[in-house]
């Protein structure tokens, strides 16, 4: 490496402090001029001890602890755990409870995808889309509050069933909300698909081929946007997905635009599935007759499709009132590796969008990014996430000002 290259080569560390990320990460991007030439990721900073914590709580208390692994996909964590514990106890929740679980899972997916759409638009500098999606997201948050009694931690699950029924009144509220959301989603789909400026930030950016996606073990909408047919709801249906199946949404292109469209199409499919369930709701009990307080000894795994991809739980019981071991693997961990691959060859300005493209819970990303200037003078310039975002927006603004259709 000659001296000029060394002078041009910067390493940009991002993280690790990140309150919103389930797997808070430290990224180091090596850049030559504007182009990212290498990236690395380190995980494991915000260890909360939840897995160990489960060992000192009883089976019921753990339900609420695990629900709090994530604030956005709280229901699906509780579902994965309950399904595992129900396997251990050899009971199965009644069909009506399973259907209600699916309704909540899909409502949660709607709110998560709308939240992501807003956050991703915000990182692209498209704050109008951000504001309007979040306004419309309130519709689904209100539905969740109306039906469950809480906006974020619905606590719908209990071991062996669900806590509350969906009454006719609640069903009407849901259907009314869905009509509005469906209309809006079609609108956002056309915006994402047609807005000239937005397309310059998404089309052809962060490309990942199907082979790469398979090799990296990517899950969820990120994988489906690269044409990988992978969805636990379809591959191994759980709760009521046997009776009310979802359609697998995949796109072959594998760029950021595909990740937007896959999520928006999933939204439309979620509306359809919820309507199907409400039209044909199974009758019956909400919980099993008897749920033991002590689980039989054994080991189970439980897989569910969280809004971000496959969520995996391993539960081991030794026959006591608390589990012996619980292991949680969240989808962000699987997708994190793909950021490294996708970022290489792109502009630094695209990095925030590529990161946000895997939906890593970037809801409150504000932390220090330190840019080490040329190693010769050893100066450090500190950037925070907001600066990097602003830099990305400014970069494209300049670029678009000079040339309106750079991607053609």
């Amino acid at each position, binding site marked *: 490496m000659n001296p000029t290259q060394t002078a041009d080569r910067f390493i940009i560390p991002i993280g690790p402090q990140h309150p919103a990320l389930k797997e808070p990460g430290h990224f180091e991007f090596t850049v030559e001029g504007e182009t990212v030439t290498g990236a690395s990721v380190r995980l494991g900073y915000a260890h909360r001890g939840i897995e160990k914590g489960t060992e000192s*709580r*009883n089976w*019921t*208390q*753990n*339900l*609420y*602890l695990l*629900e709090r692994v994530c604030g956005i996909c709280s229901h699906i964590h509780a579902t994965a755990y309950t399904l595992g514990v129900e396997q251990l106890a050899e009971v199965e929740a009644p069909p009506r409870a399973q259907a209600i679980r699916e309704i909540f899972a899909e409502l949660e997916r709607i709110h998560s995808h709308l939240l992501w759409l807003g956050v991703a638009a915000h990182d692209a500098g*498209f704050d*109008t*889309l951000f504001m*309007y999606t979040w*306004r419309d997201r*309130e519709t689904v948050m209100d539905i969740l*509050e*109306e*039906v*469950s*009694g*809480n906006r974020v*931690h619905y*606590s719908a699950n*209990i071991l062996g069933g669900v*806590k*509350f029924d969906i009454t006719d009144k609640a069903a009407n509220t849901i259907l009314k909300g869905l009509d509005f959301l469906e209309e809006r989603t079609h*609108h956002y789909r*056309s*915006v*994402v698909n*047609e*807005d*000239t*400026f*937005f397309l310059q930030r998404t089309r052809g950016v962060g490309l990942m081929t199907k082979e790469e996606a398979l090799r990296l073990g990517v899950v969820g909408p990120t994988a489906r946007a690269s044409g990988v047919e992978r969805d636990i709801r379809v591959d191994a249906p759980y709760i009521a997905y046997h009776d009310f199946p979802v359609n697998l949404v995949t796109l072959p292109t594998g760029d950021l635009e595909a990740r937007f469209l896959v999520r928006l199409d999933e939204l439309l499919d979620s509306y359809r599935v919820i309507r199907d369930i409400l039209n044909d709701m199974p009758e019956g009990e909400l919980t099993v007759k008897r749920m033991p307080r002590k689980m039989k000894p054994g080991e189970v795994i439980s897989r569910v499709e969280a809004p971000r991809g496959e969520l995996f739980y391993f539960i081991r019981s030794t026959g006591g009132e608390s589990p012996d071991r619980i292991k949680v693997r969240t989808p962000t961990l699987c997708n994190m590796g793909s950021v490294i691959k996708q970022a290489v060859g792109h502009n630094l300005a695209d990095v925030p969008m590529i990161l946000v493209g895997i939906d890593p819970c970037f809801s409150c990303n504000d932390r220090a990014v330190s840019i080490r200037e040329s190693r010769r003078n050893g100066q450090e310039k500190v950037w925070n996430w907001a600066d990097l975002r602003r830099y990305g927006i400014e970069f494209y603004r300049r670029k678009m000002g000079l040339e*309106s259709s750079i991607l053609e």
Partner: protein
Amino acid sequence: MKKIGMLKDMIRSAFRQPVTELYPVERRPAAEDFRGMLHWNPEGCTGCALCVKDCPADAIELITIDKAAKRFVIRYHVDRCLFCGQCAYSCRFNCITLSNDEWELADLGRDNYTVLYGEPEDIEQFSLESEPEPDIEPA
């Protein structure tokens, strides 16, 4: 021609009322099943303590005044409560309800966050017997 996706929305919104609410001035009633502050009705309680066992946050303490006469006092720590509603679900005698209108629970100190529920004479007896304890943080 360049297409600008949200232009129509923006123009339309310029002539609309804001969607935000002037919160302390305007209050939207909470949902019917909203889970707010816990209330305990001593009638029917057998002292099984399932609510205490299942509480994920150690927010409920059951104090036995006289087990044979089924006299109990509940000490409820509002500041620890997660409002998950498991206690209300666990209670077989429907003694516990979560209020849907008491949700503005912010306070400047922690003293008001410990609430005693029970028959007035039981609470009095308990207060006389027990010395004031320092508030212990949950483990």
